[in-house]
């Protein structure tokens, strides 16, 4: 995914929702990483 995507057209609400979505995705990935690294 390119990082220079266009955000300026998003409404404040959509921008904040997008941030929330990505933030939750990161939390999911961190949880996965932690769980799978500790599984024997």
């Amino acid at each position, binding site marked *: *995914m390119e990082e220079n995507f266009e955000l300026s057209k*998003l409404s404040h609400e959509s921008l904040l929702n997008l941030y929330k979505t*990505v933030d939750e995705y990161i939390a999911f*990935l961190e949880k*996965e990483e932690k769980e799978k690294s500790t599984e024997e």
Partner: protein
Amino acid sequence: MSDISLEIEKYISSNKEILSVLPVNTKKNRSKYVEKVSELRDAALKIRQVILTEIEERYDKIVDITENPNIARINKNIESIGNIDLFNELNTPYEKLEFDKIIHSLHCFFEGNFDLVNQNIKLFIDKFKDFGIELTEDDFTYSKFTNEYIKVFFEEIENFSSDRLKKTFEDIYWKCPDIVTHIELNLRYLYYINAKKIEKELNDRNDRVLSELKLNKNKFVQRFFDLNKELIEIERIDQKRLLDKFVNGEWKIKDFANKEMEVLYEKLYIGDYFASTPEKQEEINNNFVSLLHTLQEYNVYIKYKYIIDDLKKKYKNKDSFKDAYEKKNKELRKKEQELVKENEKHKRNIKRAKSLLFVFFRRKIKREIYAFPVLTNEKIKEINNLYIDLDEEMVNTRIAEFVDENCSIKYMFKIVTSFYTYNYNLIKEHYKDDPDVDVTEELQELLDFINQPYKVMLNNVKLAEEPNITSIISNRYQIMNIRLEKEDLEENLDTLIQDVEKIVNYYNIKKSNLDINDITFIEKVKPMLSKR
């Protein structure tokens, strides 16, 4: 949903799908899985950073609005007008130039400190200098102690924390605990003998101000209030000021939601505000702005009613005030002249005591020199009491001159605030059992109120109408379809002010054209950004 939002959602779900099909049954597979997760997380962190930067930029752009430049312009105009108190018809230059404040501060020396005494003496000397009168130690001859202290004071005028000045004060204080009173009365005497010169100079200065502005006194005062009114009008709808309330958390946008406001308008307005035309809504809101000013006036009125009551008590005896000031003044000046003569005689006695010509009278002279401090101190105490009486008589004179049944309540307040000591003592007496109350702050609040431009109600309600004040207010606003009973004013004033204030704030936000979405965004983002 916008393209980019969809794109990112697709990207996330496809990544999740990729992860879901990766084998995790062996340690090696799990290691590969973790490697992939880590790679995806790094990419996601970069995406999140890009979004966050956009959020920060938007936040900064919204918050970074500047105050309406007209606010600075009007403030400058108000500053250029200067001090309208210098034109107060109730005062002499003694009050106009705040000599009364200096004297009051010295009079309450026990409440202040040594440093404050020196600052006040210097302030007095500087004010005289400003009016072309250079005071020296030779002007401080009210008592020998005054002269002793002032000599050192002038030598140490640049350094009030000097040990020498402190030691001099301490040494004199034990010989004459009334030293500050002596200085205070010496200053009052200096004002008295220079009053005409100061008055002439002040009148000339005031005339120059009016001629430069091409205004007469009334128009000059009116201009001051007009400018203040203009300032308040601009400030109340200034986007920066309103937005700051949300940024600092004082206001919450949900409190101004339409549902909340519907309840409030229904509570206070007879009619459907939201179904009204924009023009009608503007009219209704302006009525609420006017009501808020009236409620704020009424609030100040009930807080300081004890002051009006005291004035009324005095007013009842106004016939007894006739000539009282002049009589007291005559008595005081006579005593002061006696003191001046005694001081001169004392000086002569000191010279004579050293002279061979008076050798046969030396014992008598020395006895007189010995007894002099006690005798003068007694006289100074009498003079001090006369000055206290004189201050009171000055207020009484003004009451006799300016108060009658047609006098407005606002003017009654103006009379009180025009006389610092009288006002201070009234407030102090009122709160004598409440040591936490700061008398100076209370006094300033009343002064600020007198100098603010919205005093429509108190400007119009006459002393004779005072008992009906709540009915006058409620009738006035019922005509405008506002639900306002006199009981609301008497029993629920705080809630009423809060409600009306909210309607006015809602109206101001609307009028300012602030974007509600921007405010909501700021409120949501602020805690997120402050965590970083």
